[in-house]
C-alpha cells in the first residue's frame, strides 16, 4: 500500500512541473510587450518599467521561471493589476463558495447516480431502466446554464420562492446564504448526475453477470444485500474515477453556473479577469485549478484500493 502511494505521488510530479511551465509561459504568449498590454497604451514609462521588473521580464526566461515557481510554491502568485490585491488571497476568497457548491452538488449527484444506476442495471430493459436511461440521456444534453435559467425563471421569477440575484456570505447569515445556494446546487446536481448514472449503470451491468453475484444469490441472500454488499463496491470503482475527474474540473470554478446565479465564485473571478485582461489573476486561477485537479485525482487514486484491493497488487 505504501509503495502504491509513493508511486502515485511520484507520478504526479512531472505533470505538476509541466503544468507550471505551461502556466508560466501563458503570459509570454501575449503578443507584444506584456507590461504594455496589461497597463494599456496610456501607461507612463516609470510604471511600465516597474511592472516589467515586478514580472521579471528583464531577466532570462529560465531564471524568470525558477523565480516565479519559487514564489508560487510559497503561495505568492503576484498581485491583481486592477485591485492590487494579492492573487492568492483573491483565489482563496472565491474558492470557498465554489468548493461548497461543487462538493455538495457532486456528493448529491454521486448518491443519485449510485441509486439510479444500480436500480437501472438490476432491472435491465424494464420500464424503470428505460426511464432512468432516458432521463440521464436528456440531462446530458441540457446545458447547465440553461437549466439554471429555467429554474431561475420558475422558482425565482414566476413563483418567487427563492432569491435569485446576488448573494449573502455565510459569515453574515448562514440561513440566507443557504437559500441562495439551493438553486445552484440543484442545477449542478442534476447536470452532473446524468453521466455518472450512465457510468454506474454500465459498470453494474458488467458486475451483475459475474459468478460471485450468482453465488451470493444462490446462498439465498436478499436482493438488497446482493446489490449493496456485493454489486456496489465493485461497480463503484470506475464511477469513483469519474467522480474524481468531475470534481477536479468543477473545483476550478463552475463559471457558467456562477454567472447564472451571480455568485462570486472562482469561475466568475476567472471570467471577470479575462474580460478585464487582469493576466496575473488569470494565471493564478489556471495554476490553482490545475493543481487542485491533479491533487483531487491523486486522492481518488489513493481511495481506489478501498473499493478494489486488486489495484495495489498491480
Amino acid at each position, binding site marked *: 500500500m505504501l509503495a502504491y502511494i509513493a508511486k502515485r505521488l511520484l507520478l504526479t510530479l512531472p505533470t505538476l512541473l509541466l*503544468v507550471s511551465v505551461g502556466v508560466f509561459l501563458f503570459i509570454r504568449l501575449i503578443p507584444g510587450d506584456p507590461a504594455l498590454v496589461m497597463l494599456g497604451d496610456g501607461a507612463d514609462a516609470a510604471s511600465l518599467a516597474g511592472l516589467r521588473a515586478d514580472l521579471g521580464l528583464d531577466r532570462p526566461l529560465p531564471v524568470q521561471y525558477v523565480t516565479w515557481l519559487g514564489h508560487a510554491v510559497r503561495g505568492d502568485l503576484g498581485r491583481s493589476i486592477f485591485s492590487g490585491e494579492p492573487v492568492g488571497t483573491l483565489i482563496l476568497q472565491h474558492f470557498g463558495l465554489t468548493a461548497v457548491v461543487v462538493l455538495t452538488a457532486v456528493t448529491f449527484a454521486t448518491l443519485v447516480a449510485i441509486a439510479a444506476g444500480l436500480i437501472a442495471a438490476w432491472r435491465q430493459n424494464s420500464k424503470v431502466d428505460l426511464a432512468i436511461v432516458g432521463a440521464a440521456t436528456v440531462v*446530458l444534453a441540457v446545458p447547465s*446554464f*440553461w437549466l439554471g435559467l429555467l429554474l431561475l425563471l420558475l422558482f425565482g421569477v414566476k413563483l418567487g420562492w427563492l432569491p435569485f440575484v446576488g448573494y449573502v456570505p455565510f459569515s453574515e447569515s448562514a440561513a440566507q446564504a443557504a437559500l441562495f445556494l439551493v438553486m445552484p446546487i440543484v442545477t449542478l446536481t442534476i447536470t452532473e448526475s446524468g453521466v455518472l448514472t450512465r457510468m454506474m449503470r454500465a459498470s453494474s451491468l458488467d458486475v451483475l453477470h459475474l459468478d460471485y453475484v450468482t453465488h451470493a444469490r444462490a446462498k439465498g441472500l436478499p436482493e438488497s444485500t446482493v446489490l449493496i454488499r456485493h454489486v456496489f463496491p465493485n461497480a463503484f470503482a470506475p464511477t469513483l474515477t469519474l467522480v474524481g475527474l468531475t470534481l477536479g474540473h468543477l473545483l476550478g*470554478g463552475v463559471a457558467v453556473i456562477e454567472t447564472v446565479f451571480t455568485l462570486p465564485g472562482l469561475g466568475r473571478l476567472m471570467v471577470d479577469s479575462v474580460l478585464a485582461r487582469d493576466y496575473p489573476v488569470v494565471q493564478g486561477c*489556471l495554476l490553482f485549478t490545475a493543481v487542485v485537479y491533479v491533487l483531487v485525482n491523486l486522492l481518488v487514486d489513493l481511495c481506489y484500493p478501498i473499493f478494489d484491493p486488486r489495484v495495489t497488487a498491480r
Partner: protein
Amino acid sequence: MSTQAKLGSALVGVLLLAVLLGLAWMPFDPNAIDLDHLLAAPSAHHWFGTDEFGRDVLSRAMLGARISVLIALGAVALAIAAGTTLGLLAGYLRGWTDRVLMMVTDAVLAFPSILLALALIAVLGSSDSSIVFALATGYTPSVVRVVRSAVLSIREREFIEASRVAGDNAFQTMTWHVLPNIVPPVVVLATSLFGWALLSESALSFLGVGVPPPAPTWGNMLSASRTYMDVASWLSIAPGLCIAGTLLGINLLGDALRDWLDPRGRT
C-alpha cells in the same frame, strides 16, 4: 435502425435543415431592428417572438446555428487532425516521443477545457478563429489518447509486420496501414467532441467571451435574455431548446454509431 438512432437523426436533421435553409432564406433579417415590435411574444408572425431590439428570435436562432456549427466543426477538425498525427507518432514510434507526448497531454488535461479556452481567448482576443483554436487545444489530448491506444493494439498485428518487411518506411506504414484501422474510434470520438464543442462555444458566448454581439449565437442570446426574464421568458427558452435538442440528437447518434462500429462496447 433503433428508435434512438431515428430520433437522433431527426434532431440532427432539423439542425442541418435550419443551417442550410438559413443560407438561402430566413423569415426576417436577423439583425433588423424593429422598434414597433420590441419583446413581442411568440405569434404566427414571429414564431419564437422578438428580442429587446425587435429582432426576430427564430431568424437569429437560425443564423446562430450556422455560426455555432461552423465553429464546432472547425474546432473538431483541428483537434482530430492534430490529435491523430500526434497519437499516431506516440503509439507507433513509442520510446521518448511517446513519453514526452503523454506527459504533455496529461498536463493539458489537468486544465478544465472551458478554463483553458478562457485563458487562451484572454491571450488571443475574442474572435471566431481564436475560439476554434482555444477549443481545439482543449480537445486534442483526448484525441491523442484514443488514437494512441488504438495504434498500440494495431502495431503488433501481422499486416503491420508485413508492411515493414515489404520495405515500407515508418511514414508509409502509418499512413497506409495503421491510419485506416483507427478510423472507427476516431469517428465516434469526433461525434461526441462535436457535441462538446457546440456546448462549450455556447458556454463561452454565454459568459461573454465567445462570439461577440451583434452576431447571434445560442449562448449570447441566452445571456442577453437574462435582463428581460420577468417580461419575456420566451427569450430564455428558445435558444436553450435549440442547444438541448441539438446535443440530444448528437449524443443519440453518437451512441448509435458506437454500437454499430463497436458492437462489443454495447451496453
